């Protein structure tokens, strides 16, 4: 039993080093998405060194980055795609839009804040947030993910 526990603990420590990231654009203006891409593509901010990898399928994801104020048009699709992400997962809201609606706050076509519909774990405010802030958010998400896996 103790050997099994040790092995499980070891496997968990190794598993934490491989968080795969999936981006959901919930009606964002694309500003935050460009910053997210920056964290992956520019040598200075390489997130792959944390073991992260941007993946194309929600089913491969561990950490979900949500950008945008959740517009009426995409709401159902966003909820559906979010449900496709297998547990355990961590959700990060990137930019001020998913937190409060940002400059779209008063709009009739916007359902922000996103945490009414999805369990948001970490907020990264900014319009758009700096790449360093996004990486900080991902690092905190990894810390949280360690508890869940």
């Amino acid at each position, binding site marked *: 039993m103790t050997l099994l526990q040790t092995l499980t603990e070891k*496997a*968990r420590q*190794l*598993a*934490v*080093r*491989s*968080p*795969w990231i999936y981006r959901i654009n919930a009606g964002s203006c694309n500003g935050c998405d460009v910053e997210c891409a920056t964290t992956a593509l520019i*040598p200075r901010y*390489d997130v*792959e*060194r944390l*073991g992260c*990898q941007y*993946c*194309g*399928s929600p*089913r*491969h994801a*561990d950490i979900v980055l949500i950008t945008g104020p959740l517009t009426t048009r995409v709401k159902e699709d966003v909820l559906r795609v979010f449900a*496709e992400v*297998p*547990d*355990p997962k961590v959700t990060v809201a990137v930019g001020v839009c998913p937190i409060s609606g940002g400059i779209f706050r008063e709009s009739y076509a916007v359902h922000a804040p996103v945490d009414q519909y999805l369990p948001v774990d970490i907020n990264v405010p900014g319009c758009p947030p700096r790449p360093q802030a996004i990486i900080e958010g991902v690092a905190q998400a990894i810390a949280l993910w360690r508890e869940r*896996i």
Partner: protein
Amino acid sequence: MLASNTPLAVLLFPGGLFALGLGLMLKGLDRRVAARLQGRVGPPLAQPFYDLVKLGRKRTMVPDIAAQPVFLGAPLIGAVTMLLAAALVPIPGVYAPNPMLGDLLVLLYLLAVPAVVLMIGGSASGSPFGAIGFSREMALMIAYEGPLVLVVAAVALRTGSFSLNDIVAYQKAHGSFLFDPVMWPALLAFLAFYPANLGIVPFDIPEAETEVLEGPLLEYSGPALGLFKVMSALKAVVVLGLGVALFFPLAPDGVAGLIVHAVKLVVMMLIGVTFLRVSMGRMRIDQAFSFFLKWPLALSIASLAIVALA
């Protein structure tokens, strides 16, 4: 020299755990070097291993419209097939597969299985992206299997045997085919074949991440996806090992032979996979198809003709 047909050969040493470790190391090296070439720091060498452990701890989701037994059986069949294939590839100076296990022809058939399994899994998932991946994988497979078979036929004609042990022994006696101008067209055709078979960037059309979202792999998650990762790591060892055995198998005996073999695999991985994928964009399926039916096919037919005449 180690020659055995015991389950040990399949599960532990040349196949099984050893091949898996080697394959994951090759993949990690590929990612690390690719990152360095792009000016990034890159992931640790053991990253594919961490990914595998992580996938083992996630949940496998099966889509409602998927054919469940086929959907879950496909990755299992693929991984097990590659496990068997890894025991068929000789490590010159260290391991010679028992002829009872199978020869080059069996290996050719086993090498076709990963692509077939991807097609079956992709279409069983019921996803439209899986269907696109299916048709692209099919076209690509038709394009690259021809040159492979002709290359293997040319080597077999030269050595007079379909047994990989005999091919290695022939080159030990007559010098490696790498320095034999008669075999150069076959070598070039093989150099074009293995990036396509390993499914990396200029030829990763069926799984194209940015256009069809990894195609057949789209719906897979958790341990089932992990089995596909195991399959592709083992396939790298098998295909590169086949290249070593066909063209430059000369190596010292014992542990030194093992090290030389690993170095050869790393060199083939860096040249044919890493450098190629960081320096090229993805081809369209029609471009890849016409490329393979032009140059590698012509080269392999030419090599067969030259060998027959020589």
